[in-house]
């Protein structure tokens, strides 16, 4: 299939290796700034909730990580699909490197949700729709990681994983609606209603900062992983040897 030339250049591991250092650093800096702003706004400036008191403040970790858990899965599946169709090595690496980060976000969302649930619902865990679908999402991530580690050949692993991720992404809406019907205790969405959010502005702005901080955190850590994966993938090429100061034949 046709691809413009600049995209090929962008996808070349050596070029991307050089570029990603810069992106990763800037994303990291923005992440730290947003994180501090978001935390200060969320923990200090935002007023206590009239129903939930101060315990709602865990939302500033819980909501962004829950969003990221889905977002990273999307990135993983789309990058995997790109790798599958155009055989771009970089896309395969991105998909592969996203999985542990996404699984961590999912785990974080589950843990914070559980901690939030204890004072609000009275139990650590309820079989609520969104908790359950988040748990299934974690299983999907773990399955993907397990499949990746079962192969010796990275290219084959990446392509097999891409199919699994794509099957998963078709399945995610079905899982979502099935558990939604099955039982629901979770509060309804408060931010997706774009016309008039039912969350107060003073609580919303720190949340948006935190969302942005999580996004940039993902970009930054993803690129660090991608860079090391590129080095492993390309360890036999001359530019990597040159970069690492390894002479030919001598480690």
């Amino acid at each position, binding site marked *: 299939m046709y691809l413009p030339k600049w995209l090929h250049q962008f996808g070349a591991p050596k070029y991307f290796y050089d570029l990603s250092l810069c992106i990763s650093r800037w994303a990291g800096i923005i992440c730290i700034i947003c994180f501090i702003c978001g935390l200060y706004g969320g923990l200090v400036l935002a007023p206590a909730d009239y129903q939930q008191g101060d315990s709602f403040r865990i939302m500033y970790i819980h909501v962004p990580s829950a969003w990221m858990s889905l977002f990273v899965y999307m990135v993983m599946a789309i990058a995997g699909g790109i790798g599958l169709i155009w055989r771009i090595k970089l896309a395969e690496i991105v998909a592969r490197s996203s999985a542990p980060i996404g699984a961590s976000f999912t785990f974080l969302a589950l843990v914070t949700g559980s901690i939030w649930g204890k004072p609000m619902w009275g139990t650590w865990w309820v079989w609520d729709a969104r908790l359950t679908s988040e748990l299934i999402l974690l299983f999907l991530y773990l399955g993907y990681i397990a499949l990746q580690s079962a192969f010796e050949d990275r290219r084959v692993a990446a392509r097999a994983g891409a*199919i699994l991720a794509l*099957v998963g992404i078709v*399945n995610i809406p079905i899982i979502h609606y099935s558990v939604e*019907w099955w039982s629901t205790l979770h509060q309804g969405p408060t931010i997706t209603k774009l016309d008039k959010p039912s969350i107060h502005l003073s609580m919303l702005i720190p949340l948006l900062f935190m969302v942005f901080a999580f996004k940039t955190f993902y970009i930054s850590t993803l690129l660090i992983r991608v860079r090391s994966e590129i080095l492993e993938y390309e360890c036999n090429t001359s530019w990597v040897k040159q970069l690492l100061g390894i002479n030919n034949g001598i480690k």
Partner: protein
Amino acid sequence: MSEYINIFFIILRRDLMLAFRNKAEFVNPLMFFIIVIVLFPLAFGSDSALLKQLTSGIIWVTALLATTLSLETIFRSDFEDGSIEQFTLSRYPLTLLVSAKILAHWITFGLPLIAISLFTGFILSLPNQTIVALCITLALGTPVLSLIGAITVALTIGLRGGMLLSLLILPLTMPVLIFSMLAIQNATIGQPISAEIYFLAGILVLAMTLAPIATAAALRIRLS
């Protein structure tokens, strides 16, 4: 077109014949199914009221587990003796050949499973409407299990360890379980179940259209 239909039925007949010649391979998962169902009354005691509540759920969960076990063999012998490679080299679409194999798997596994569940339902004296709902959901659900399972089997074929297969299949099949159990619960208390049935049918149609393509792609990757 008729050529394609022809080749579909040739593969189907071949697989069915292979299954009946090698009876242990398709009887064992069914035996597993029956034995696990028998385990539950032994574990929970013969309190029939409690068992009646649990039975349809037990049957469904056991069906899921038995499917994972039975699916292991769907491509194995063909993979080992090189038939799959010949399939990919043939001029017929691999998707078509794979669909025939999946259908054959469902006939040798899904159909007997539904019959056994019907029988178990009667033996354990479930109410009639529950048995009907159980059979409808199994009839719609087991093909989905075969179809989704085929993708993951194709991905893991030739790898060591059957645990990986169940790790991959079970999360993907949870919606089927949820909708089926909702339908069965509604049927038991006399509520209409058409909404869940439509959903299951929709999932089945989606799986029928996409799963063979994904399975074929997965097989090609494993062979490359």
